[in-house]
């Protein structure tokens, strides 16, 4: 049925349609307008958060800046669109934003049915539970019959149901769309526990709880939540740029290159570093970028470790360990393909 309508309109369309099917429409459009439009979370401590002057910071935000640094040589050429969970997919699908960097879990359906391409995972997360300390709960296995606050339209909502089903427990969901509302409901005592990505729980505990030490994260991590930036189907070149902007930060960390010492590394004899920093040209051209693309990312935004530590690391309010997000060489999962 739908197909026939499609065919009929497509046939008629030939006379009317504006042809848009060239290679790399997004990349071209980004270059033409001179900035990257980046879809971010409207407010999530450590990942994307505006300060009172409206300046954005956070891990997700930094990867947008990395892309801008790669494309324009200037990490500030980003404009941010704060998006709710509901708005994020239409926004990227419709072209309202060029990248969706909004603590979004990479999953099969999102890759396919939503028409998205996910760049490398920027944060390996998992779903956890937060409960008030005074409730005395030590494990998620003790949560039978609990009331659980969860944000609607997220993978967490699905994992939650799966987890309780798998463990033969019941629960009463309180499902609210806005993040603010969910956490407000939890802290007001509407729910016994709050479930979300562990990193997000840490962020909320740090930023929203009136006394963060009153709340504990339960040890169970019930799901895999690889959070990754996404672009829409239809522009592979742009996908490559975003992908390699992320890899560049990891490559830099693997090679010990930081924003502080990068200029020293320009003299490095290591051929991979020479290729990476554009001392030996070729890589930038292959991506359709300036040869200094990786240099600009690291110089202006930092390597992966710097980004992590600055936004969510142990010295921040979120106090997250590297864990899975350590380099592969240090027992983590962060691994970049070779630059060659």
């Amino acid at each position: 049925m739908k197909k026939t309508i499609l065919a009929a309109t497509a046939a008629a369309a030939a006379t009317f349609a504006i042809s848009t099917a060239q290679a790399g429409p997004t990349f071209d459009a980004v270059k033409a307008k001179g900035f990257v439009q980046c879809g971010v979370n409207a407010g999530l401590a450590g990942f994307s958060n505006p300060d009172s002057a409206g300046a954005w910071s956070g891990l997700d935000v930094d990867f947008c800046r990395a892309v801008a640094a790669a494309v324009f040589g200037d990490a500030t050429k980003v404009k941010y669109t704060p998006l709710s969970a509901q708005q994020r997919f239409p926004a990227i699908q419709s072209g309202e934003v060029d990248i969706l960097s909004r603590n979004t879990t990479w999953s099969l359906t999102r890759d396919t049915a939503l028409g998205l391409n996910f760049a490398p995972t920027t944060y390996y997360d998992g779903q956890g539970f937060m409960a008030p300390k005074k409730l005395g709960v030590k494990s998620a296995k003790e949560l039978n019959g609990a009331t659980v606050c969860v944000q609607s339209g997220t993978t967490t909502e699905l994992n939650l149901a799966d987890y309780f089903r798998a463990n033969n427990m019941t629960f009463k969901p309180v499902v609210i769309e806005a993040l603010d509302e969910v956490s407000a409901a939890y802290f007001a005592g509407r729910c016994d526990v709050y479930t979300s990505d562990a990193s997000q729980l840490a962020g909320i505990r740090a930023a929203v709880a009136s006394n963060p030490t009153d709340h504990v994260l339960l040890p169970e991590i019930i799901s895999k939540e690889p959070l990754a930036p996404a672009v829409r189907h239809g522009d592979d070149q742009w996908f490559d740029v975003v992908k390699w902007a992320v890899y560049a930060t990891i490559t830099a960390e693997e090679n010990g290159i930081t924003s502080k010492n990068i200029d020293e590394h320009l003299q490095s004899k290591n051929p991979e570093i020479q290729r990476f920093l554009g001392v030996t040209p070729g890589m930038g051209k292959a991506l359709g970028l300036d040869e200094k693309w990786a240099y600009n990312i690291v110089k202006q935004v930092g390597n992966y470790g710097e980004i992590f530590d600055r936004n969510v690391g142990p010295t921040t309010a979120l106090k997250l360990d590297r864990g899975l997000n350590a380099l592969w060489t240090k027992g983590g999962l962060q691994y970049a393909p070779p630059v060659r």
Partner: protein
Amino acid sequence: MAQTRLSLNDPVTRGLFYQALVIGGVVAVGWYLIHNTLTNLESRSIATGYSFLEREASFAIGETLIDYSPADSYGRALLVGLLNTLKVSAIGIALATVLGVVVGIARLSKNFLVARLASAYVEVVRNIPPLLQLFFWYALITEGMPAVRQALEPLPGVFLTQRGLWMPVPLADPAWKAMGVAFIAACFALWGVKRWAAARQARTGQPFPLFAAGAGLLAGVPFVVWLAYGAPTAMSVPELRGFNFVGGVNLSPEFFAILVGLTVYTSAFIAEVVRSGILAVNWGQTEASRALGLNNAQALRLVVLPQALRVIIPPVTSQYLNLTKNTSLALAIGYPDLVSIANTVINQTGQAIEGVAIIMGVYLSISLAISLFMNWYNKKIALVER
């Protein structure tokens, strides 16, 4: 004016020309939008169609009228949402009508205090956005009531907490079903008695105490059935076990907030409708009834109400429709109505067009059904009028 052949000065030709122009415009715009949408969907490889309705929903819903588990389909999840919408609408309409009629009559009261209080109520309630009122009621419970462990117990077995209200309910027993059947039977019987009473009054002139008989019938028959089933009194009393109260029946804060919020908001509008409906009936009608010797109740029932209802019912119906549409605000406080479930479905499947189409389709059907009824009703009373 010179008449030229087939010119735009000919009203028929001109009419056709304009209509063709407008239809052409509408079709062109519509086609343009559909074309864009289809191209966009295809170029971004977004899934289309309604096949997702049969896929497993995998998310849980807090309040359901029918059996539902995350293993059920998206379609069933949406049905749960629709039933929740209808539940709030039906109860809300009933309560708003009662409250609205009381306040509307109170505004006309001879008692100064009553009239002033009622008009203050109306002026405050209808001039504040309903969404704000919903948030207010929701916050009042979740922030203002005690935690589960410190639950208030205003009556034995009734608990008031920030997670809502728990009340004892009778344990399942065949008697309840039988009583329901008995009640329906009593309704039919009452209808028969009413006809008989009317016939008798026409014949002998003797009125029948229908109100008392009706009350007795509606309460008495189920009561007798209850006795016949051995008068079961076992109750399921809520008790604190684990995290929450178990047993009894729970009114969640979300349900409470949407119900109270919409009832209060709509009642103010109904009150105004009722007031103007009563005022629309000329005072002379009451005087004439009195002069004929009808007592107060008779004048109200036989003369004033039949006329006032004609003025009242159409706008009240549209208030009912508004209330039903406003249940969509449930989304903001997390009550799982149709819109909020559809919203979740959209988020999980990414199929926004289908999701919004379902919402609109359902509401349009409800509106259409009500307007068809209204047209029928208006025709019916118009016939009586002239």
